[in-house]
C-alpha cells in the first residue's frame, strides 16, 4: 500500500528558520521567503552558530547578490506555474520583470550565467515536472493537466513532454507503474 504526502516546502522551511532564529536569541524579522533581516549586525560567532544550525537541514546562507536574485527568479517561476488558472494572465517575461523589478533582459542574462540554463528552459523543465507529478498522483486526464498548465492543447503538452524527456507521457506513466509493481514484488 502507498500513501502520498504533500509538503508545503515554504511552510516547512520557514518553521525551521523561525526555530533556529529563536534559539539564536537575536532580534530578527523574516522579510520574504528566504530572507532574514537582523536589526543589529550579527557577530561572527552568532553567524557561525546560525550557519551550523541550518546546515543540518541542508539550508545554507547564500553569499552573493546574484545567487539571491536567481533564487528569487526560480521561486517566482514555481509560484507562477502552480498558480491557479486565470490567476496570472500576463506573459512570463512580463510577470517576472514586474515581480522582481528588473528588466527581463537583465534577469535572463543573469540566470543563464549562474545556472547554465535559460529562464525559458527552466520554466519548461518545471512545467514538465509538475505535469509528471499530476500524471502520477492525480486522476486528472492529460487534457485537464494540459489546461491546468496553460498549454493550448494536449498535443502541445505531449510534444513538449516528449522533447524534454525523450518519452511520451503515456510511456512515462507505464514505466512508473511497472517500477512500482517491481518494488512491490521485491518487498
Amino acid at each position, binding site marked *: 500500500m502507498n500513501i502520498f504526502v504533500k509538503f508545503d516546502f515554504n511552510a516547512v522551511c520557514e518553521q525551521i528558520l523561525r526555530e533556529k532564529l529563536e534559539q539564536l536569541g537575536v532580534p530578527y524579522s523574516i522579510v520574504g521567503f528566504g530572507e532574514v533581516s537582523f536589526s543589529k549586525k550579527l557577530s561572527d560567532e552568532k553567524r557561525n552558530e546560525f550557519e551550523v544550525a541550518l546546515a543540518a537541514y541542508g539550508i545554507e546562507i547564500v553569499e552573493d547578490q546574484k545567487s539571491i536574485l536567481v533564487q528569487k527568479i526560480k521561486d517566482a517561476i514555481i509560484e507562477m506555474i502552480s498558480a491557479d488558472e486565470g490567476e496570472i494572465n500576463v506573459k512570463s517575461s512580463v510577470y517576472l520583470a514586474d515581480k522582481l523589478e528588473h528588466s527581463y533582459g537583465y534577469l535572463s542574462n543573469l540566470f543563464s550565467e549562474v545556472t547554465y540554463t535559460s529562464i525559458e528552459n527552466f520554466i519548461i523543465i518545471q512545467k514538465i515536472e509538475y505535469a509528471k507529478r499530476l500524471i502520477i498522483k492525480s486522476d486528472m486526464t492529460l487534457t485537464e493537466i494540459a489546461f491546468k498548465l496553460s498549454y493550448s492543447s494536449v498535443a502541445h503538452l505531449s510534444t513538449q513532454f516528449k522533447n524534454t524527456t*525523450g518519452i511520451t507521457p503515456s510511456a512515462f506513466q507505464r514505466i512508473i507503474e511497472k517500477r512500482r509493481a517491481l518494488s512491490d514484488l521485491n518487498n
Partner: protein
Amino acid sequence: MNTDYIHIILADDDEDDRLFFTDAFDELKINTKVQTYNDGVELMDYLNAPDSVLPQVLFLDLNMPRKSGMECLEEIKADTRFKDIAIAIYSTSASEEDIENTFVQGANIYIKKPSDFKKLKKALSQVVTINWQYHTNGLNKDNFLLRL
C-alpha cells in the same frame, strides 16, 4: 556555484568510446571530473569500496564482459547507499524493449551512443544540465527519466 564540479563515472569496455567520452566532457564549459572503468566488475569494486567517492552521474554501457550494465544497475538499485546517483545507460542498442526495461529497473537516463562527436557533446551537455536542475532545485529524482 560555478566553482563546483560534477563528478561523473563511465563504465565501458570499448577504449575508443571511453576516450570520446572524456574528450567530450573536456570540451564542455561545465566543470566535470570524469573517471572511467573498463567493465562492470571494476566499476562495482570501486563503488563498493567503503571509502569510494560516489559520482553524481554514472554512465553504464549495457554490453560489457564479466558483468553487464544491466547487472550493475540491479546491484546499484538494491543498495540504498547509491540512491542519490543518477544512472545513465549509454548503449549502442536502441531497442524499445531494452530502453523501457532499463527505465523500469531504475535507470534515469538512456542515451543511444551518438554517431559523431558533436552529437555526443550535445547529448552529454544535456544530461549534465538536466541533472544539475534536479540536483540544485530539489526535484524528485524518482521522476527523472530522460531519453536521448
